């Protein structure tokens, strides 16, 4: 019973929190660029407006893809908050992401084709990292369950600090923040128009935006797991991580996908090996 209540709360509160975080993100970004920035509620206005726009699709497949993407993102948040299996969360998340790419590839537009292929490369970069992190969590807790993390007596960050860096790397790629805004970018100067999002418009773009809010919460929830013993520690860790993401987003330029793939996988594997050896030596 409590699980159902938690699931419903997560379903309702996660997008609201995600939107507020996106609003704060835009405000902080503006502040770093010595601008005033939009109101904190701006993401809500954007999505409401998009919902009210005339639906326009190149084919129905694309609309379906947008819905599957949002359902995938929402389901993975619900699974995380009900203490479910990390691997299950990973698979659900991946299915959603794959549908986003399929929707982009379903139209012949070169912008969305290139965007879709770059998104696939991004997935190729962050998915191994996420699996490594989940495997490391399982080694510490002895189970893939999220609920097992909360039974630990001391924060995971003490045991697998390097895996937190790996997770941060994966998050930057997953949230498509600079230097990894390779497949989609909304900044004034855009080489890909909008990459994977090019062919989605109106209500379908709103769905993708909502899915993005869910993803922000999922990603921050995963970070929070690293300090599972105290609520304050969790919040501090999450806020610091997100602040670091925003700063990195603002001080770096976009990089090539080759560099992303090499550095992400290379660094991920090296840090994981060091951390695992250390875990064994203890």
């Amino acid at each position, binding site marked *: 019973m409590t699980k159902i209540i938690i699931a419903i709360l997560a379903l309702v509160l996660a997008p609201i929190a995600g939107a507020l975080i996106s609003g704060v993100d835009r405000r902080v970004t503006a502040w770093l660029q010595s601008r*005033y920035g939009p109101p904190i509620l*701006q993401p809500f206005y954007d999505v409401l407006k998009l919902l*009210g*726009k*005339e639906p326009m699709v190149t084919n129905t497949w694309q609309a379906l893809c947008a819905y599957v993407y949002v359902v995938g993102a929402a389901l993975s948040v619900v699974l995380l908050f009900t203490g479910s299996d990390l691997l299950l969360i990973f698979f659900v998340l991946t299915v959603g992401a794959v549908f986003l790419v399929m929707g982009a590839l379903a139209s012949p537009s070169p912008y969305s084709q290139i965007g879709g292929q770059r998104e696939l490369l991004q997935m190729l970069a962050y998915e191994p990292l996420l699996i490594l992190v989940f495997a490391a969590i399982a080694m510490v807790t002895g189970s893939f369950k999220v609920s097992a993390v909360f039974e630990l007596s001391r924060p995971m960050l003490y045991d697998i600090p390097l895996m937190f860096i790996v997770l941060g790397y994966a998050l930057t790629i997953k949230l498509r923040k600079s230097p990894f805004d390779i497949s989609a970018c909304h900044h004034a100067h855009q080489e890909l128009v*909008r990459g994977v999002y*090019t062919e989605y418009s109106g209500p379908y773009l709103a769905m993708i935006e909502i899915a993005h809010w869910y993803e922000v919460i999922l990603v921050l929830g995963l970070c929070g797991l690293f300090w599972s013993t105290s609520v304050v520690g969790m919040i501090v860790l999450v806020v610091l991580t997100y602040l670091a993401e925003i700063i990195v987003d603002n001080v770096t330029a976009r990089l090539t996908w080759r560099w992303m793939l090499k550095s992400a996988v290379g660094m991920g594997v090296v840090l994981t090996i060091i951390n695992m050896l250390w875990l064994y030596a203890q």
Partner: protein
Amino acid sequence: MLGNMINKGRIKSPWVVHFDCGSCNGCDIEVLACLTPIYDIERFGIINVGNPKHADVLLVTGTVNQRNKHVLKNIYDQMPGPKAVIAIGACGCSGGVFREAYNVVGGVDQVIPVDVYVPGCPARPEAIIDGVVAALEKVKTLLGMTA
């Protein structure tokens, strides 16, 4: 209630797409100047998107000629409604100094319906921002909103 909230969103988040119909580049640069920290139009929720499918407002600079009128029409048709068009600069309003040239069609309104005209050669960034605000006022009266 949802309708009211959507209308509020429409007023608060006009995404612009910017099309340059062969201008002298003067008005173009003034449009981009609006995005810089000095004018910072993002504080009104305005984002410069590169994609007509995501845009609500079409900013057109420069004279329309026989070549690019099809492109302009195509961009306009790709924008999902509700949408607005703002013609910027003397060229966009009427053809400006190029009006008499043999290949020039004239102002933007010869090809697509224009909601707001922003005169000037080049139009100042302040005037362009005013133009977007005027377009929003128009949208507000159309939607029957008072506030």
